[in-house]
């Protein structure tokens, strides 16, 4: 049974690449001989490939390597040993950080358990809650210890606490209070009054462009997603930010401590750079890998030199 023209046509390219099994290649040859239209198509395809192969490759311009050397002269020498040492050091930093976090959590829980009940009278609803601490109403003790509100939060609609809270509620607690009719302003920390808390908010890419200059948690006007190829993209970003006269913080606004990222890891950071360096920052990001631009509309006009926030989602 011989191969028909349709199948032979679909195999012309593989035939030209020598990628067909011997039997199929023979059948394609036979089909080409048999069908003049297919033969013309084959010749046209072969001609195009030869044309591209003979004229496509180019030489790098004269002095390419020299110009590259000039640019590379400012780069630190590579060293596998340094990379290995850095990794070991980061491992220890990781362990130390986990230990420190564990200590903080344990300490916080103990402090919460030892806190005396306030003198002021709790609200009716708060009094109904089993929590011994009225400033952060909670459905159960665990939720309270973690600063998380349970269902209904313990506040009745229209009820408000009569005394100022002894510690700041979390962002979710503030929102829950507003939903339950609590005077939100009384509980709202300064950083939230300027805009919603935006931890990890880059992931959906659908926020509004309203911007408050210098507000940490407002959406940044420039937002990028970088798929980095380097061994340690966060370290690179720290260097880039410093080079451009800026600074870099993590999603919670703390100065970024870099750590080696594994394949599949991601991190949300924010870089603050002078406005005249935003484009240069974008160019540097492109050197790190593939960059998706989520937003580049400034939303507001910045004076030359004003520090502007740029949100970056780094993927390894």
């Amino acid at each position, binding site marked *: 049974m011989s191969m028909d023209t349709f199948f032979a046509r679909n195999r012309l390219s593989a035939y030209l690449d020598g990628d067909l099994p011997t039997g199929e290649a023979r059948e394609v040859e036979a089909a080409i001989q048999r069908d003049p239209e297919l033969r013309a198509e084959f010749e046209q395809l072969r001609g195009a490939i030869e044309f591209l*192969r003979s004229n496509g490759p180019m030489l790098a311009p004269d002095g390419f390597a020299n110009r590259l050397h000039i640019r*590379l002269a400012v780069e630190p020498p590579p060293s596998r040993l340094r990379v290995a040492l850095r990794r070991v050091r980061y491992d220890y930093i990781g362990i130390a950080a986990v230990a420190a976090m564990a200590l903080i959590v344990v300490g916080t829980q103990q402090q919460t358990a030892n806190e005396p009940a306030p003198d002021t009278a709790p609200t009716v609803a708060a009094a109904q809650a089993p929590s011994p601490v009225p400033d952060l109403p909670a459905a159960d003790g665990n939720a309270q210890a973690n600063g998380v509100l349970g269902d209904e939060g313990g506040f009745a609609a229209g009820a408000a606490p009569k005394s100022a809270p002894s510690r700041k509620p979390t962002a979710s607690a503030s929102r829950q209070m507003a939903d339950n009719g609590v005077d939100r302003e009384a509980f709202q920390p300064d950083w939230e009054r300027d805009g919603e808390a935006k931890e990890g908010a880059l992931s959906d890419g659908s926020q509004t462009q309203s911007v408050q200059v210098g507000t940490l948690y407002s959406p940044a006007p420039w937002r990028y997603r970088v798929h980095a190829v380097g061994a340690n993209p966060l370290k690179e970003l720290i260097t880039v930010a410093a080079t451009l006269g800026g600074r870099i913080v993590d999603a919670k606004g703390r100065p970024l401590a870099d750590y080696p990222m594994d394949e599949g890891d991601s991190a949300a950071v924010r870089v603050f750079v002078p406005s005249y360096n935003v484009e240069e920052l974008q160019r540097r990001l492109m050197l790190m890998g593939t960059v998706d631009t989520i937003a580049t509309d400034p939303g507001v006009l910045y004076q030359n030199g004003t520090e502007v926030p740029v949100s970056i989602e780094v993927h390894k």
Partner: protein
Amino acid sequence: MLVALLAAVSFPGLRLAGPTDSDLVDRFTHGDRRAFDEIVRRYQDRVYTLCRRWLDDAQGAEETAQDVFIALYRSLPGFRGESQLSTWVFKVTLNHCKNHRLYRNRRGYRRHETIDGPPAPGEQDLPGRQIADEVASSDSRVHRNEAESLITAALAQLDEEHRQILLLRDVEDLPYEEIGEILDLPRGTVKSRIHRARAELAAILARKIGREDI
């Protein structure tokens, strides 16, 4: 010398040429910057070609090709050797080309024409050497420039998927498997996409110059 020649004849698989890519990477990560020079020598034309054919802008292509090598310089110590160096180089190059193109589009590249009007395809931003060469043009050079314009125009008409796969296969001469690795595509998809891309290119070229002239 004679021993080496005999060894090459007796054992064709025996490597007598320069160091392999992985040797160079190894030397480089141990602090030998000359190994990186060798990597640049090996790949500069291929990286530049890919950038030039992708971007159709000599200056932008050189800048992008240099950016590629700088990115490699920074990231090579983290190269784990799970794929070939060439695969990695071409992957990084394609990423940079795409980024550069996006960046250029955002900046309104070529939005403003010169007083002489828009340049013809393949004639933009010629570096000094090429301009000087063209002054003393010969017949062969004229033909080469015509072919150059034709290729540039034809590639520009292809969509991005087809252009990149054609460049990797027929200009960079990479095997299906490596192309699949670079583009994260299974071998069958690579094969069928190459076929469609070539057919499209052939049709474009045929329209432009006539089938008999290809």
